[in-house]
């Protein structure tokens, strides 16, 4: 019969439990014990590139090669280097394998059994030197990173409470529970200087203090896990790779505020994150770390998971609360703030996933360990989802104050295919585009808002010379119009009008007045929309107008798209030097706009073709069909 675990009833019970688990990460931290662990990344990014079949293949190979007593097979959380997935690691050697396919499993297992050198073809190659790198820390992508919120991601098995404890888990909560008064704990948080990682950067200590002082018996603690910004996946990776640290952060915050009920509001589109969080909560209930009178203290706390249906507006705290109550997800007027009147009318505190993931570190290592990192007013680190036209795509965590250049070039490895860097978009649909001239801007709350963007939740999309900034502004506005909840007029109607003007411009019908209208309307929406998301929705338009006005003017005045992205402004032409007169373009043209000229091609029986601009509908079919790539924009 399976051993039934006794619930932990006292601090001493808990300490004994920690000691019993303290060895669990030894091998992963490099201690040799004669055996090896292969850990396969089990987060969504690597799942998408096929890590589950890699895991199965490792299992089969270990059996086939009779290495069951030598090799343990395990899973890991997100390493962040999603572009190079599936990723797996071998311990204690600490070998970092990338792009592992099921058929590579045999060779990797063999190299461990035979104690030979790591399998070269699955090692990372430094693009600058061509040298193979076996160790994670040596890879340029990781060198400038500082991992606090992601400290356990890629180190622990995310489903193991024991692993979490072995890396110092719940040390901070224990201090908050037994050693610190709520006032002292808030003082420590103030000293640490943690600010909300969801976007706005409100000081965490202050939010907690206001809620704590709000009168009322019942209080709620809410974790905002409704990551709705397209192109951002920080929170998902944290929940998938280290769910216990989010829960521990919530437990500490709840104890300090005096909340006995916790709610995680999470997108239903994140099935794996939901699964990992739920199993973490269940496990903690089982051992008695969640529930009534935790470890014999007067503090009781439980956590419930509520599902969001993926509405962008529900990331706004008042809309989130409405949705969690079962109503339509629409923002309400502040004040009253959630800290005064939140979920079910009770004082509530809402923090984002990444904010909670930082809390255990602060209480576990002390505020100085946290506030010595970062810039003057923005302390600690920030996780970014680096994506777009950059060589190394993935999750990066850097100290606040790191420059955009360091992130894009040193960590991101520069722009893909040797193209020219044009802009980086931070903050998602609420943020702005930062031009290449400002690439040395240090990343923190103050600097980003000074240049018309914002920290946002941490999406960072890199764009190159081929991206049209007017089209990008239109892309974000399309998103905002789709996602506007419709409660207030500036956002519901204003953004629709903005989108109409932008569509007019990219279709080549824009005028000078349209640019003025864009600017004026944007400023009105910024001033008058109800919620934070509405107020920041014109940011993509305002920032591109500010830094890329020449592109707007080219669309409006010369009717050209300098990046050749806007189809309506495109002019397809056949290069007479390349055309072989095969007629493939003419035969495929849906509107019969391509005709032969009287100039013979290389084969004198065939003739060079020409596109009639007036008839052309710019569908690009000819360019796609040309066998010699003679047709271009």
């Amino acid at each position, binding site marked *: 019969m399976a051993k039934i675990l006794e619930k932990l009833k006292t601090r001493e019970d808990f300490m004994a439990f920690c000691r019993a688990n303290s060895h669990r990460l030894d091998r992963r931290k490099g201690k040799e014990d004669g055996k090896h662990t292969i850990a396969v990344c089990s987060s969504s990014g690597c799942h998408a590139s096929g890590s589950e079949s890699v895991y199965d293949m490792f299992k089969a190979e270990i059996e086939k090669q009779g290495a069951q007593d030598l090799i343990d097979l395990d899973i890991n959380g997100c390493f962040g280097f999603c572009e190079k997935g599936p990723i797996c690691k071998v311990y204690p050697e600490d070998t970092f394998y990338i792009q592992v396919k099921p058929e590579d499993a045999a060779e990797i297992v063999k190299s461990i059994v035979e104690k030979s050198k790591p399998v070269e073809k699955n090692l990372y190659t430094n693009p600058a030197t061509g040298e193979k790198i076996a160790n994670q820390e040596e890879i340029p992508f990781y060198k400038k990173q500082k991992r606090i919120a992601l400290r356990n991601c890629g180190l622990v098995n995310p489903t193991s409470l024991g692993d979490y404890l072995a890396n110092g888990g719940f040390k901070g909560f224990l201090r908050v529970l037994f050693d610190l008064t709520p006032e002292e704990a808030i003082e420590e948080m103030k000293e640490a200087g943690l600010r909300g990682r969801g976007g706005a950067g409100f000081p965490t200590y202050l939010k907690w203090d206001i809620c704590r002082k709000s009168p009322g018996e019942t209080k709620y603690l809410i974790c905002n896990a409704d990551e709705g910004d397209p192109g951002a996946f920080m929170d998902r990776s944290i929940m998938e790779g280290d769910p216990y640290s989010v829960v521990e952060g919530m437990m500490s915050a709840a104890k300090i505020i005096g909340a006995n009920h916790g709610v995680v509001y999470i997108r239903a589109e994140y099935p794996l994150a939901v699964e990992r969080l739920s199993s973490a909560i269940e496990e903690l209930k089982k051992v008695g770390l969640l529930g009534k009178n935790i470890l014999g203290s007067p503090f009781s706390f439980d956590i419930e998971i509520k599902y969001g249906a993926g509405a962008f507006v529900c990331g706004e705290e008042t809309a989130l609360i409405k949705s969690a109550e079962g109503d339509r997800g629409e923002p309400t007027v502040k004040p009253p703030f959630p800290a005064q009147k939140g979920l079910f009318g009770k004082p509530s505190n809402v923090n984002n996933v990444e904010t909670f993931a930082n809390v255990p570190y602060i209480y576990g290592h002390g505020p100085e360990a946290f506030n010595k990192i970062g810039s003057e007013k923005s302390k600690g680190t920030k996780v970014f989802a680096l994506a777009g036209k950059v060589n190394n*795509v993935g999750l990066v965590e850097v100290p606040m104050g790191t420059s955009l250049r360091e992130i894009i070039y040193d960590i991101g490895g520069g722009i893909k295919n040797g193209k020219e860097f044009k802009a980086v978009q931070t903050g*998602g649909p609420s943020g702005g585009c930062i031009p290449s001239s400002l690439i040395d801007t240090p990343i923190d709350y103050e600097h980003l808002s000074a240049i018309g963007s914002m920290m946002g939740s941490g*999406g960072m999309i890199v764009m190159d010379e081929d991206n049209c900034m007017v089209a990008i502004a239109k892309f974000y506005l399309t998103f905002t119009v789709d996602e506007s909840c419709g409660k207030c007029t500036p956002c519901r109607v204003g953004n629709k009008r903005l989108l109409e003007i932008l569509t007019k411009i990219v279709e080549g019908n824009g005028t000078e007045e349209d640019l003025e209208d864009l600017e004026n309307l944007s400023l009105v929406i910024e001033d008058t929309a109800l919620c934070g998301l509405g107020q920041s929705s014109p940011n993509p338009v305002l920032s591109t107008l500010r830094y890329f006005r020449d592109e707007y003017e080219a669309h409006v005045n010369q009717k050209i798209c300098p990046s050749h992205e806007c189809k309506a402004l495109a002019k397809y032409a056949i290069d007479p030097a390349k055309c072989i007169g095969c007629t493939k373009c003419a035969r495929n043209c849906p509107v019969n706009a391509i005709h032969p000229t009287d100039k013979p091609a290389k084969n004198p029986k065939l003739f060079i073709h020409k596109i009639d601009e007036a008839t052309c509908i710019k569908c690009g079919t000819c360019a796609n069909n040309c066998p010699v790539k003679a047709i271009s924009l």
Partner: protein
Amino acid sequence: MKKSGKFVIRVCLGTACYVRGAEKILHKFQETLGIKEGETTSDGLYTLETVRCVGACGLAPVVQVNGKTYGNCTLESVQQILEENK
């Protein structure tokens, strides 16, 4: 309610995919299948949909067919994806 096709093709139009040319992939699907997004081919084989971010930004642009993810898609991948799912 409309019946969806045997294969539901979802082209991701999240920011990372968009920046890496997801719209062109969508157009290629529309052109090849002769349907717009939200529609199903007359033989009931394919439904074309768009989604905003499946979280696999590292593999952008991304297409999902019945839950299976195809990463780093190019215009050539469109034909391959259709070949593989029929």
